[in-house]
């Protein structure tokens, strides 16, 4: 039972992980993207659409191709909205909060409409849930035979491992590569980065769009992996909530993708806690739901009170950079 809980926590946590790593990359470039909830929804819409494109005409679908199509389209849709955000905030220098909120409003609405009207035509939903159960949730070999180890570490779908790989790569990239160094410089002080010859605009665009694409996988993961391919009517609302928590998780993990792996599993555990504890009443469940948010607030306050330089957001987060304002 406990092992199962831990396993589910990981499975749910990776949804946060996608969103969180995407947002970290975006914030490292100095942009607070409040459009992440909408962007994650876009990923869900795109993923289902991609899977449908392949599954509908095919009688004997191949699992690998299905997953690939879903991932491709999820990233494509999410990146498209990310590009709109990037264009408005980087090139047109509009307010990041306002633009992000508009992205969320658009993304959530669009996904709800798109899934219900365009994706879920006759027969799609059974095919999607078939794919969800058999392809996206296919466990690694040995999951059954290795007991608790298998349940925790091997019994997950492809996207779970993908999320962790992406998080590790992002952490390595930020810490050890030149690109990561330049990116952090852009987020800290675009003027300084500009002065040493870094192409600030290119970095901002690249990482906002890349961050959006990664976050989009979170939406896909929510539907195809955790929900086993079942598209219910409120899915975009659920993803929106997860999206806001992903942004909170960024603070919780202090802008470190490696910490985000742990943080997202903790958040996942907190999130599903209420549905796994059987002995408590319905109202207590609601109180349990509060925990992730309260924890986030406490972490936010604590980091600002300690005021250590390295746990702070990138110094120019939320400020648009206009060279001639200097």
């Amino acid at each position: 039972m406990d092992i199962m809980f831990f396993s589910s926590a990981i499975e749910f946590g990776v949804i946060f992980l996608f969103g969180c790593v995407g947002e970290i990359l975006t914030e490292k470039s100095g942009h607070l993207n409040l459009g992440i909830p909408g962007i994650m929804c876009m990923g869900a819409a795109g993923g289902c659409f991609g899977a449908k494109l392949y599954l509908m005409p095919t009688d004997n679908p191949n699992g690998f191709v299905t997953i690939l199509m879903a991932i491709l389209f999820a990233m494509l849709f999410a990146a498209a909205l990310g590009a709109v955000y990037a264009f408005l905030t980087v090139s047109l220098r509009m307010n990041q909060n306002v633009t992000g909120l508009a992205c969320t409003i658009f993304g959530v609405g669009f996904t709800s409409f798109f899934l219900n009207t365009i994706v879920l035509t006759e027969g799609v939903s059974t095919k999607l849930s078939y794919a969800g159960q058999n392809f996206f949730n296919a466990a690694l070999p040995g999951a059954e035979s290795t007991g608790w180890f298998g349940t925790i570490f091997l019994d997950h779908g492809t996207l779970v491992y993908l999320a962790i790989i992406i998080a590790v790569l992002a952490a390595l990239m930020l810490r050890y590569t030149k690109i990561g160094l330049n990116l952090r410089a852009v987020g800290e002080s675009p003027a300084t980065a500009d002065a040493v010859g870094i192409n600030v605009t290119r970095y901002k665009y690249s990482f906002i769009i890349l961050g959006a694409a990664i976050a989009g996988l979170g939406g896909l993961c929510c539907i195809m992996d955790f929900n086993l391919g079942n598209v219910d009517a409120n899915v975009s609302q659920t993803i929106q909530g997860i999206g806001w928590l992903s942004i909170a998780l960024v603070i919780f993990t202090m802008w470190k993708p490696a910490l985000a792996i742990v943080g997202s599993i903790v958040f996942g555990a907190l999130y599903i806690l209420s549905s796994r504890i059987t002995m408590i009443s319905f109202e207590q469940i609601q109180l349990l739901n509060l925990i992730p948010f309260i924890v986030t607030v406490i972490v936010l306050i604590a980091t600002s009170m300690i005021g250590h330089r390295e746990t702070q957001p990138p110094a120019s987060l939320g400020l648009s950079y206009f060279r001639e304002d200097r």
Partner: protein
Amino acid sequence: MEEINALELKNISKYFGTVAANEGISFSLKRGEILALLGENGSGKTTLMNMISGIYYPDEGQILVNGQEVVIRSPKDAFAHQIGMVHQHFKLIDIFTAAQNIVLGVERRSIRGINEEVKEIAERYGFDLDPKKKIYDMSVSEKQTVEIVKVLYRGADILILDEPTAVLTPQETEKLFSIMRAMKENGKSIIIITHKLHEVMEISDRVAVLRKGRYIGCVNTAESSEMELTEMMVGQKVTLNIERPETKFDRPLLEIRDLCIKNDMGSRAIEDLSFFIRGGEILGVAGIAGCGQRELCEAIAGLRKVESGGIYHEGESIVGLSPKEITHKGIAMSFIPEDRLGMGLAPSLSITDNMMLKNYQDRMPAVEESGESAEAPDADLAVQTEEPGAAPAGHMEEPDADSAAQKKNGCKVFLRRAGDRIGRFLNRYCGFVDRKRARQQAEQIIQELDIVTPSTETPVRRLSGGNLQKVLLGREILIQPNVLITAYPVRGLDINSSYLIYDILNREKKGGTGILFIGEDLDVMLALCDKIMVLCHGRLMGVVHAEKTNKEELGLMMAGSLNLMEEKGKQMGIAKDTQIGGDASWNE
């Protein structure tokens, strides 16, 4: 065989608008020499060097590197020609390590092994630098080291250091100089911008002197003397006709005793400073940039914490009072930091609103004064825009069929009275701001100080520099202070505007105000001020009577090579008739 110069400038000019920052400057830098670029503030040293390092592009002239003509459009171009500049304001990222800052933006494949590389370079030139240390943990001199290594790492052969010693202690300066000599040994050519003569004498091989944007000449340091250089730097005495009205000096209004203040970096900006200002005198403060004037101003105005010592206004201590309380005591500050709009003015707000900045909390007088009707004739208009919906609309409907003009007039007066009364009520009991008075004040200063602006409602951001200064000074004078602190009030102003400012200050002085004038141009200070106090590294070098001194003496004091405090052996800066501690009477 003719020697090829590392850097040669031919006829370089740069104009900002119609002002020539540099005009026809030509000189050369030999390989492996240290050239000092000497000049007063505003003589165009930094502008010139910015053109070499790719920040600005010259309007005229040519730059030759190693005998080849080059075009430098960006810092990247400058690096490509192996020119690197260390700016006065560091461009570093706080949360990065030294090594990360140094390699940032350099074309290279990975960042592995940077610590070793940086360490190697640092050791080669004798720097003491920990590549893994974060910038935010560093002192100013360490940050400067990082900047220098950053330039060296990019393979610069020509280094430009913009006032590198301004932020250093004498010991750190000494260390920097030995490093510069080591770099020279390594075949680097160095230009050091400074206006400290003794440093020039110590470090440089040759000295190029600029004055008011023009190139004066170049001499070998060994064949020159401080006196000669000062003459070159200052030039012929500019004939200035600034009035210095004779006033009867009043009692000391503001007295500073043993004041110590820290700067933003946490080091001492002002040390054991004592001086006083009498009513009716202008006390000039001379000193090189960053010698603590800014911190002193902020401390007096209540914006900066006083470490120790006292500030007394008419004998009462004002240490620890809020800026508001200090303003109410009659101390006004018109202080223009490097960024003119950073403090003192709110850029997007109108002139009217900026007029209110200090006195917006004042209440209108309770009873109507008899001189009310003598106020500006357009006041009624102002009132109506002031309180929309507040002015009772019902009164508008009064019939004006017969004897229209007179009645209309009467109605107007009545309306104005009513509007005034409502305005006064709202101001006194509802906390409304008195924008009407602010607008009148704005109009007053616009007229008196010839401020060029479309209207009183124009955001100050759109005004030109000179007009901004006038708004700022005008506002401070309007509250009729008895101590006025003004820093660089004529910076960026043309001659006529400058004279207007001097006239304003003299008028205030005649009215018995004590003025602390922080200036840049020694000629002006000698002509305008009654006494001049010289600071060097936050220490008082002496207070001299403007009539009895000259620029050379001041220059030596500013550079720290002449200290009158030691010479005279008596304690300066404390008034005989001090107001501190009891009612010491005064008679002069």
